[in-house]
């Protein structure tokens, strides 16, 4: 999942201080699943903004990273925005000054490609991750490096190791824990235990050659 965390409200207000009519729009994708950008949070944020004498419209978009294209930006907005209080019309949307989006950075940029209105993020996008055992905590699990080796390791040493070690743990592994992120298990110990269980330790016996970092640049377009 793409993981976001809320920006401070004052920071969001500062970005829209010059605007009057604001469309606050949540996203039904990742952010809805962990209550950072769904219907409830959209309503809450919209009400807060309203108290600062703004004309606020609230809506949800099923996925801001995947919009249905219209003939122009207004039509795109109409096709995608599901009004929370009421059905939205051209009249509601045509003089919107700015959009406050609760989606991730990808969703916001996709909106920017199709909708010619000023958009501000309500959240900071932090990483691609999953929930840890403690249900409230997310951990980063993928850097999107464009060079996946999970068939060998099951857990990713590139994202989970601060040094991105590809050939085993560093000398800092401390009773199975990472020396840099002290409350996290060393990913190489995780890999070792998992592969041992699967009887596949042979996968990490070969030397993993230096990574081709040009893939990181090439990956921007596939």
């Amino acid at each position, binding site marked *: 999942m793409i993981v976001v965390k809320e920006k401070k409200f004052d920071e969001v207000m500062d970005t829209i201080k010059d605007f009057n009519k604001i469309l606050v729009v949540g996203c039904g994708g990742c952010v809805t699943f962990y209550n950072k950008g769904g219907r409830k949070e959209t309503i809450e944020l919209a009400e807060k903004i309203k108290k600062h004498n703004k004309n606020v419209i609230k809506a949800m978009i099923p996925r801001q990273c995947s919009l249905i294209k219209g003939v122009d930006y207004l039509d795109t907005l109409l096709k995608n925005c599901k009004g929370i209080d009421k059905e939205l019309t051209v009249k509601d949307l045509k003089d919107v000054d700015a959009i406050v989006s609760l989606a991730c950075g990808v969703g916001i940029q996709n909106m920017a490609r199709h909708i010619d209105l000023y958009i501000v993020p309500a959240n900071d996008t932090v990483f691609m991750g999953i929930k840890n055992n403690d249900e409230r905590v997310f951990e980063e699990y993928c850097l999107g490096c464009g060079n996946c080796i999970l068939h060998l390791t099951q857990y990713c040493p590139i994202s989970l190791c601060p040094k991105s070690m*590809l050939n085993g743990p560093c000398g*800092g*592994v401390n009773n*199975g824990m990472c020396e840099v992120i002290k409350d996290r298990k060393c990913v190489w110990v995780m890999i070792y235990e998992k592969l041992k269980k699967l009887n596949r*330790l042979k996968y990490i016996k*070969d*030397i993993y050659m230096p990574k081709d970092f040009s893939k990181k640049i090439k990956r921007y377009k596939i």
Partner: protein
Amino acid sequence: MSKFSNALRKRRFVITGEIDPPKEPIVEEIISQIESLKNVVVAANVTDNPVGIPFVSTISVCKIMIEKGLEPIYQITCRDRNRIAIQSDILGSYMLGIRNILALTGDYPLVYKEAKPVFDLDSVQLIYLLNRMRKDKIDFFGRKLSVDLDIFIGGALNPNSEPLELEIMKLEKKIKAGVDFIQTQVVFDRNVLEKLKEKTSHLDVPILIGVTPLKSVKMAEYFLQNVPGIRIPKELIDRLKSSKNKIETAIQIASEIIKEAYELKFAGVHIMPVGMHGYVKEMISRAGI
């Protein structure tokens, strides 16, 4: 061929030391360490900005050592340089007469955390690339080299690491990559040495055991907190507590570990004197080997 590699090939019990580059460019601080270790150890490592704290450059200290007659083992980490810079430094150091290299991944910058950690390569990959450069005469990027590189490549091992099997797997990779010698993290416990001997009996690589004089209970606590997995027997701590002459006790403890490494038929020891350079000679002679 370096004196160090020659000594290991002759299967003598080999002793290396360590020079700590100073924070500032004060040559005298280097010279005094060199004078203490010269003719006492075969060669001495030069650290590379340990824990990410900047000191004067490793290569410059190595060069001074060569001038003063102490053979250097050039430690190079992957923390501060990418593969372009590492290759460039290695070839540059070769021009200055540096032959022994200890290839390390390097500590994460835990003190000056604002610095960007590089880690373009890890230690296994660096050993592989260095060995390929020597063996096949091609550089890190596949370019043909015309010069024969008579380098001697080392790697590190933490015998205190748990699970040890995983550390041994990594050691096997280093051997596969072409490592010539291994120097270990500091060891204080004979049990750790015995276990290491048993787990590495199938491997044909010289291992030099890391030795550091333990000067105080405070120092022992520092090691326990900062050296992952390290074990210090209670008996050693008690000896330090009741010691009337800390220096004397430190020398004695170090000499005992040296003796144990010798008895267990390790290839040698690597003494990291941390300020006690002047006592290294005594540590060795007291070991009676």
